[in-house]
């Protein structure tokens, strides 16, 4: 199957990076998480309840909704924190991108390891700007808030096209589709990776694929 790919671009100030990324990633994961599956006999299952909560940003005039799951929030914050540090340390002109990839695992026969087949990739391209004074920062707050509103509308539009989603798995297959490691919600299997672009615009050696091991059950 083809993997669909969506790209979002934002320009933010240094201290807004984390909140902007979290806002976008949480909005995506809100749509790509379900309640915990509880399989019963005869192959039926029931689904747990997903709670939501509003998060106000400190550096942006924006509020986003995320799934009420501390574990998921921690995992995202960790990934975004690493991305932010990499961006700050890269020197360069502050451009990078963070990708959220949803994939399915396909079991292969020994000795081959399982395949990870992505079915949806969201890429957020970030351009970090530096501002001179407080007035510019205030304007930036509002502008980035408005931009994020647009991004949320874009995300929702894509989500509601109801394009390919993995089939609901049987109990034995559930770990190939969902991340069952969290205790309160169940997002689709995902991984987050990032790239920092140097000033030449080429993708540099710091391309890394980071697996968030403590949240993925691999």
């Amino acid at each position: 199957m083809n993997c669909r790919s969506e790209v979002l671009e934002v320009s933010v100030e240094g201290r807004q990076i984390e909140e902007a990324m979290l806002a976008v990633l949480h909005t995506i994961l809100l749509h790509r998480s379900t309640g915990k599956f509880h399989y019963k006999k005869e192959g039926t299952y029931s689904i747990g309840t997903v709670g939501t909560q509003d998060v106000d940003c400190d550096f942006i005039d924006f509020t986003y909704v995320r799934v009420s799951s501390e574990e998921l929030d921690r995992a995202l914050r960790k990934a975004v924190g690493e991305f932010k540090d990499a961006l700050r340390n890269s020197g360069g002109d502050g451009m990078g991108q963070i990708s959220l990839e949803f994939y399915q695992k396909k079991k292969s026969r020994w000795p081959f390891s399982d395949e990870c087949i992505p079915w949806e990739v969201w890429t957020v391209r970030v351009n970090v700007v530096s501002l001179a004074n407080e007035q510019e920062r205030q304007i930036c707050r509002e502008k980035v808030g408005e931009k994020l509103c647009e991004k949320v509308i874009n995300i929702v539009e894509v989500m509601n096209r109801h394009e390919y989603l993995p089939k609901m798995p049987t109990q034995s297959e559930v770990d190939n589709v969902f991340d069952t490691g969290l205790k309160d919600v169940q997002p689709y299997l995902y991984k987050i990776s990032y790239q920092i672009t140097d000033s030449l615009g080429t993708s540099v050696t710091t391309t890394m694929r980071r697996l968030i091991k403590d949240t993925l059950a691999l």
Partner: protein
Amino acid sequence: MDTDLSSQDRKDLDKFIKFFALKTVQVIVQARLGEKICTRSSSSPTGSDWFNLAIKDIPEVTHEAKKALAGQLPAVGRSMCVEISLKTSEGDSMELEIWCLEMNEKCDKEIKVSYTVYNRLSLLLKSLLAITRVTPAYRLSRKQGHEYVILYRIYFGEVQLSGLGEGFQTVRVGTVGTPVGTITLSCAYRINLAFMSTRQFERTPPIMGIIIDHFVDRPYPSSSPMHPCNYRTTAEDNAAVYPSVEDSQEVCTTSFSTSPPSQCVFTVTQAHFQTPLPVVTDTLKVPMMGLGFSHQLSSSRLSYQPAALGVGSADMGYPVVFAGGLNAAHPHQLIVPGKEGGVPLVPSQPPHAAQADQERMAMCTPLDGAHYSAATPSSSEDTETVSNSSEAKSGSPHDILETIFVRKVGAFVNKPINQVTMANLDIPFAMFSPKNIELEDNDPMVNPPDSPETESPLLGSLHSEGSSGNSTGNTHDDFVMVDFKPAFSKDDILPMDLGTFYREFQNPPQLSSLSIDIGAQSMAEDLDSLPEKLAVHEKNVKEFDAFVETLQ
């Protein structure tokens, strides 16, 4: 066709749509309550959370929604709409958003009701959660409180978008195809906040405070903010009263009490049904938060911020006005800077009580013809001069002010100065103010008798003699000459005081070297006369040398 759909599926589908509609209303209304929403995830299914989402049910909202639906479901031509509007403390209201749940005829026969439709409805609700935080009304609703509240109204039938003003925008939350039609959820929101700017409500402290008990002529409405609404739902009359729902009363209480003016808790109890509480009939616009604000307004005393503060503040300010005048008889006379006519501006804010007692003094010295003094109505009794930065602000805050305060005359005057007459003004203490609106020509204080004494020396020396008449006029436009007695100005040498001295010697004659007559001589004549002059000097060279020696 329904024959394709089993009866069980049909029943399920109807139930899904009904509960989807109810949950949609809950999400929208809760998003406009003005507070952050937080619900918990639960891994073990409780069976009562529709669409696997933890969305609380506010009973009153459910009741309103059920009433509006009246047992029907959204169908073609019959949409369920939630209207969000804003109402100010002064009673003005404005529609902000209309959320529409519509059904069209495009059917998706292949889709599985109990599984795919259900999950897609769940996804749509999540999208709705996200989108409700993203429209402009969200930020307004988070800041509701003293100055305005957010109201909602549910109706069923045709969508009415006319109240949103021009250029409203639409955002589609999503669609879900079902075997009986496609459900579409969208929001049309106003962007033309000309009546009030979003920025105004983001600044929580009042820009221009009003002490309410000064409005003696206009009794302030202290009754409940919920005026009988003009709207009618299509299927209802306005006689219904909210029936007591015993189980839900506690829920209602807790869910509304966290709004900012939390002294008044929004409770639904049987005893209160007869009173005009905002709680309830279907035609009333129901407030999104407690009763709080009306009580707050009648008892609050917001402090009056003096004009100097308005000048200094970065945001709105009212048109910056400068007092040109001058003695106790005209404490309220104001002149707008920079305008040719220097038309006295009617006080753009209701004169503070203290103003009547204090004089706003401005001394416009003739020396600094380009500087103006600002009135500080209540704070200080000293004369103050304001920097010219305030002039720069006079343009833009005025514009902003014009767009915001459209409706009131008196407190926030929006009309051009000339149109404002005393009869239209509803300012307190009007009897104390002079006839401010006489044209400048008639006012001796603005336009002193035409005499050379009133020219400023600065202006006089810059203009050539021919235009001295103009400068007089300009002087009058710019400031008013004051007969003053400067301190420490006694001078025994000249038998006149400083002021008289100035006036007499204000217009010194032009330097002769600058006059044009000199230039009339031709160059040739100059050159011709040079050799003669040199010859004369050479004759006297010995004298010059002797003179130079004496200097050394």
